């Protein structure tokens, strides 16, 4: 669905954010993109959406270059930015003006998503709180029914019931033809929705692995005593140790995404190698 080939990008010549970055994303999946602050998550997403142009390399959607921005490609992409801009319209008027750009837009989906997220369709959008604005745009993005849906930190600013509704909506809109990419720091908000983990670190995609495979490769646990266990990575506190081990027994343990992320960004080569090997 999305193919990024040897992408190099930087906002200035001295400092490249990506250097020969390669990434392939398939339809029918929800990708969770993790990376430190400043790693370039948003910039990578903007390259995918045709909002930033690669210095070298290509970003292709179904074989067509995104940076050329042909209408046939743009109408298949929806990008929900972290900082959103909303006009001084009601959601109904916003849809009347904007939905035309997306041939598969469903008005009935839009109004049912607004309702689920508790957003008033007759209230002027930029007079609402940040959370309400964000939810209105989430509803719009989901209702576009584009094949590629990119969301940058979508759960920021959402209250607890809205997060629940957000998860339900995401579960409802994934189809075999759709690819959803979500960047997030709030891993706990989304960890049973993400099926594939992407980690962006130091100019490249270090990890691109199905969560089901991660648990076959690694095991996660809390130990009062790690003697004789050979942990690949550990974080200790007064009660004991949170550790990542190589999964040699085939036993299941839930992926501790925060622990795994910390292990990867502090340069744990062994874990990255295990996750890279096929």
């Amino acid at each position, binding site marked *: 669905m999305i193919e990024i080939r040897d992408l190099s990008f930087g906002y200035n010549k001295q400092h490249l954010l990506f250097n020969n970055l390669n990434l392939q994303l398939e339809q029918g999946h929800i990708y969770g993109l993790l990376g430190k602050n400043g790693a370039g998550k948003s910039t990578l997403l903007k390259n995918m959406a045709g909002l930033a142009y690669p210095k070298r390399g290509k970003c292709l959607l179904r074989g067509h270059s995104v940076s050329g921005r042909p209408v046939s490609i743009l109408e298949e992409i929806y990008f929900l930015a972290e900082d959103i801009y909303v006009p001084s319209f009601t959601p109904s008027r916003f849809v009347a003006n904007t939905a035309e750009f997306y041939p598969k837009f469903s008005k009935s989906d839009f109004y049912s998503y607004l309702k689920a997220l508790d957003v008033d369709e007759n209230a002027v959008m930029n007079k609402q709180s940040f959370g309400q604005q964000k939810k209105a745009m989430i509803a719009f993005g989901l209702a576009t029914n584009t094949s590629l849906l990119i969301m940058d930190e979508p759960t920021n600013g959402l209250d607890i019931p809205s997060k629940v509704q957000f*998860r339900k909506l995401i579960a409802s809109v994934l189809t075999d033809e759709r690819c959803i990419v979500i960047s997030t720091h709030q891993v706990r908000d989304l960890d049973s929705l993400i099926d594939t983990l992407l980690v962006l670190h130091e100019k490249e995609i270090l990890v691109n692995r199905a969560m089901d495979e991660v648990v076959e490769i690694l095991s996660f646990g809390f130990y009062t005593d790690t003697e004789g266990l050979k942990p690949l990575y550990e974080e200790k506190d007064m009660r004991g140790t949170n550790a990542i081990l190589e999964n040699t027994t085939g036993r299941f343990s839930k992926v501790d995404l925060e622990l795994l992320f910390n292990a990867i960004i502090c340069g744990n080569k062994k874990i990255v190698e295990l996750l890279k090997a096929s």
Partner: protein
Amino acid sequence: MDFKENEPIYLQIAGSVSENILTGKWPPGEKITSIRDLAIELEVNPNTVNRAYELLQNQEVIINKRGMGLFVAADGAAKIKTIRKERFMQQELPEFFRNILLLDIELNDLQSVYQLYKKENKTNKETGHENEQ
């Protein structure tokens, strides 16, 4: 549904579906919740529910009627019982024996306790409100 951390979510979902079939909440021949609807209810990736349903289809607990959806197999409950009995015999029973041996409990001593338990839970089981552990 709160998920446990020591078992894959798809197996936990398959377990809950099996539970509903065993207790009669989902009777034989009944159409079961679609992949999408169950994913929404549980707030999980639809691919996870799909994996659970695939497992149950392979076990012939549920059947796919093309274009109509998924249904509880006529002998779905029996199939689950066979699978669970096998697992009980292989995994839980040895563990149970190990424990009673360790604690010097004779199997005969448990007979009366078991009879009492059976009596108390029988009515529940018949009405389909069995409180399985």
